[in-house]
C-alpha cells in the first residue's frame, strides 16, 4: 500500500511555551511578535536570561513549535555568560538537548564561555554539494546502477567502517590538516579546498586534546556516512531562482548534483561526550550555573575551554576529511558506472558548509566591531556578498548555503544575504527541521513500504535498514520550502535553486 508521506499541519500562532522545572522560571514563557517572521522572548521574564531570545518563524512554523521545548531552550541559552545580541533560533528550530537544534549564540571572546553542547555531539556535521555536467534525463536510465555503486562505495549505517584503520600518525595528520590531508593523499582535487569553508582545515587543532577513546573510535571510520539523518543524495536542479548566482555556482536547470551530509563520526561524538563531562565538573569552580546541565560550559580562556577548542577543531578537521574522502568515492562510483573521468563529468565541488561548529568571528555588537565566538548548533554560516571570509570565487554572490529538505520533497541552494549579519551573526537555517519524533513517524507509517512509496515518485532508495526509513520520511519533517521562505523574508539568505531528489542513500 502506498500512502501519502507528507504531513500537513494547519495551525495558529502560538504565544507561549511551558517551562519545565528547573528551567529558571515558573509559568509559561511569553513570546512577543516583532514582525511577520520574527518573535521575541523578552529577557525580563526570567532573572537568569542575559539577552532576549529571537525566533525566526512565520505563523505556521510558530504553530508547529507549540508545546515544543525548543523555545524554552532558546531562553536557556540566553543565560550563558558573555552572550551578546540575542539567543537566536533559525526557522528550522526544534527540540534539541541543551541548545535547540537551529540555535545560534555569540559570546564575547573577552569573558564569554564555550559550551560543547552548543556545537553538538556531531562536531562539524555539514553538507557538501558536488556538481556534474550531467542531466537528469541522461542519467535516469542508469540511476539504479548509480545508486547501487554509491551504496557499495560509501560505507553507511551504524558504526560503519572504512575497511582501513589509520595509524596514530596518519590520524594526527587528519586531525591537524582536515580535507587538505585527504587531498594530499590523492582523495580529491586542490580546487575542492578553495570551495570548502575554512579551506577544509580549522586552525588551532590539538590532537593531544582528543582522548585515546575518541581516536580509537575514529581510526577506522574515515570515509563513512554513518546513520540517522545522514545521507548521500542525487538530486536534479529543478528550478533556478537566481540565474547569476546559479552560474557562479556552476548550476543549471535539469542538472544532476550530489549532496553529502555527515560529520565527524564516533571521534567527534566522543570528543563532545568527554568535554561535556569535563565542563560539567568544572562549572562550580568557575562560578557558572546553567539551567540545563547539557549547557555545561567553561570560560573560553580557561584550561577546559582551551582544551575543548583544540579538540573541537581536530574533530572538525576529521569531519572535513571524512566528507572529502566520501566525495572522492562518489566520483569513483560515477566513473565506474558512466565510464568517464570525473573531471570530464564536471564533478567539481560547489561548496562544503558546516552546521555544527563554533567559530571566532567579528560582528557588530551595540554598533561596535566585537570579537565573538559564534556557536552554531544546526545552523549554517551565511556570510553575504563581499565578506572577506567568502572564497574569492563566490565573493560577488555570497557564501553558498545548502538547505536539505527531506527525502521525498525538495532541497534548496542559496547564498548568504546582507541581512544575516545584523540579524543573526551571519547565520541561517540548516535544513527542514523535524516535527515528528521517530516513534511517531514509525507509528504514522506503520505498514507502509517507504522505499516503494518513494519509487512511485521516481526516487530510488538504498538503505541499510529499509524497515526504519519511516523515521526519516517526509512526514517527520517540516516543509523545507516554508523554512527557506522565512529565512529569505528575514534577509538571512537568497534562494538560488531548488533541487528534487533522484536517489537517496541512507545509513
Amino acid at each position: 500500500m502506498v500512502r501519502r508521506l507528507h504531513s500537513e499541519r494547519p495551525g495558529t500562532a502560538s504565544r507561549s511555551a511551558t517551562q519545565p522545572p528547573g528551567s529558571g522560571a515558573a509559568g509559561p514563557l511569553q513570546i512577543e511578535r516583532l514582525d511577520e517572521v520574527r518573535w521575541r522572548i523578552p529577557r525580563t521574564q526570567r532573572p537568569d536570561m542575559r539577552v532576549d531570545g529571537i525566533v525566526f518563524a512565520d505563523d505556521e512554523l510558530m504553530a508547529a513549535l507549540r508545546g515544543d521545548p525548543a523555545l524554552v531552550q532558546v531562553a536557556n541559552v540566553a543565560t550563558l555568560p558573555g552572550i551578546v545580541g540575542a539567543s537566536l533560533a533559525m526557522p528550522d528550530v526544534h527540540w534539541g538537548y541543551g541548545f535547540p537544534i537551529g540555535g545560534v549564540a555569540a559570546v564575547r571572546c573577552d569573558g564569554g564561555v564555550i559550551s560543547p553542547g552548543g556545537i553538538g555531539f556531531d562536531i562539524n556535521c555539514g553538507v557538501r554539494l558536488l556538481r556534474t555536467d550531467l542531466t537528469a534525463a541522461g542519467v535516469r536510465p542508469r540511476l539504479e546502477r548509480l545508486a547501487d555503486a554509491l551504496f557499495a562505495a560509501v560505507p553507511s549505517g551504524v558504526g560503519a567502517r572504512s575497511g582501513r584503520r589509520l595509524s596514530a600518525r596518519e590520524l594526527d595528520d587528519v586531525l591537524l590538516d582536515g580535507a587538505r590531508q585527504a587531498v594530499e593523499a590523492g582523495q580529491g582535487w586542490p580546487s575542492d579546498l578553495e570551495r570548502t569553508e575554512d579551506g577544509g582545515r580549522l586552525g588551532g587543532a590539538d590532537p593531544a586534546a582528543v582522548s585515546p577513546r575518541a581516536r580509537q573510535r575514529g581510526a577506522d571510520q574515515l570515509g563513512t556516512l554513518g546513520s540517522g539523518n545522514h545521507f548521500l543524495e542525487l538530486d536534479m536542479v529543478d528550478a533556478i531562482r537566481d540565474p547569476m548566482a546559479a552560474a557562479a555556482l556552476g548550476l543549471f536547470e535539469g542538472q544532476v548534483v550530489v549532496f553529502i551530509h555527515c560529520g565527524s563520526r564516533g571521534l567527534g561524538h566522543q570528543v563532545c561526550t568527554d568535554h561535556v563531562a569535563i565542563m560539567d565538573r568544572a562549572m562550580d569552580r568557575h562560578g557558572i550555573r546553567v539551567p540545563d546541565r547539557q549547557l555545561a560550559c567553561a570560560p573560553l580562556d580557561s584550561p577546559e575551554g582551551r582544551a575543548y577548542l583544540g579538540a573541537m577543531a581536530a574533530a572538525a578537521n576529521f569531519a572535513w576529511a571524512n566528507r572529502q574522502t566520501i566525495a572522492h568515492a562518489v566520483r569513483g562510483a560515477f566513473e565506474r558506472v558512466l565510464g568517464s573521468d570525473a573531471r570530464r563529468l564536471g564533478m567539481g565541488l560547489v561548496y562544503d558548509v558546516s552546521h555544527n561548529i563554533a567559530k571566532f568571528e567579528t560582528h557588530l555588537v551595540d554598533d561596535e566591531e566585537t570579537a565573538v565566538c559564534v556557536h552554531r548548533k544546526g545552523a549554517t554560516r551565511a556570510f553575504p556578498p563581499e565578506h572577506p571570509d567568502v572564497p574569492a570565487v563566490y565573493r560577488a554572490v555570497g557564501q553558498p548555503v545548502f538547505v536539505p529538505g527531506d527525502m521525498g520533497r525538495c532541497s534548496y541552494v542559496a547564498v548568504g544575504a546582507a541581512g544575516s549579519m545584523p540579524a543573526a551573526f551571519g547565520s541561517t537555517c540548516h535544513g527542514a527541521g523535524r516535527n515528528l519524533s521517530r516513534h511517531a513517524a514509525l507509528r504514522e507509517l506503520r505498514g507502509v513500504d517507504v522505499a516503494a512509496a518513494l519509487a512511485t515518485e521516481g526516487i530510488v532508495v538504498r538503505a541499510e535498514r529499509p524497515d526504519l526509513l519511516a523515521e526519516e520520511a517526509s512526514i517527520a519533517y517540516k516543509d523545507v520550502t516554508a523554512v527557506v521562505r522565512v529565512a529569505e523574508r528575514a534577509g538571512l539568505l537568497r534562494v538560488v535553486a531548488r533541487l528534487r531528489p533522484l536517489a537517496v542513500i541512507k545509513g
Partner: protein
Amino acid sequence: MTTAADGSGGLPAARSGRRHTIVPHTADAGLRMVAPSLATLFEEAAVALSAFTADRGVGVPPSIWEDVRLEAGDLPGLAYAWLNELVALGDIHHGAVLEASVVGVDRRTDASPDGSWRLRARIGLAPYATNGPRPRRGVKSATFHRLAVVRRGHGWTMRAYLDV
C-alpha cells in the same frame, strides 16, 4: 507520552520489578527506566539502550567481555558516564551489548576528586553479524538534558535523552 518497549533486548538478569519505556523526542529519543535498586536500575538502562540500538538475534552469546569501573560526582553524572560507556563500547567493538551485570553502585565514603559515586560492572558484547545481533539505530551520545536518577517509593527511576 510514553510507549511500552518490548524489552526484547533484555539481558538475562532477574527482571522482577524492572521495566523501561521509550520516551519520544522530536529529533532524538529518551529512555525511562524503573527498577527496585540502583544496581538493577543501571542494568535496566543497559537493557533499554541495547533494545533501542540493536536487534539482539537469537541464542547468540557474548564473545567480548569488558570490566568497567566508573566514578562521578552524583548519580546523574554516573548515569551519563554509564550510558556513554555502553555507547562507546558498542561503537569500538561494532557490536551489541548483550549482557550487563552491575556488581555495585555505591557512594564512596572517602573524599575523591574524581567523584563520590562509583559503579562496577561486567559487560558482554557480540559483534554485529548476519547470524548475530544486527545494528538498529546509531546513538551518538547520551546527554545531560533532563537526565535524572530519582528514588521513588521502594525503587528507583532514571530518565535519559539520547542524541540519535
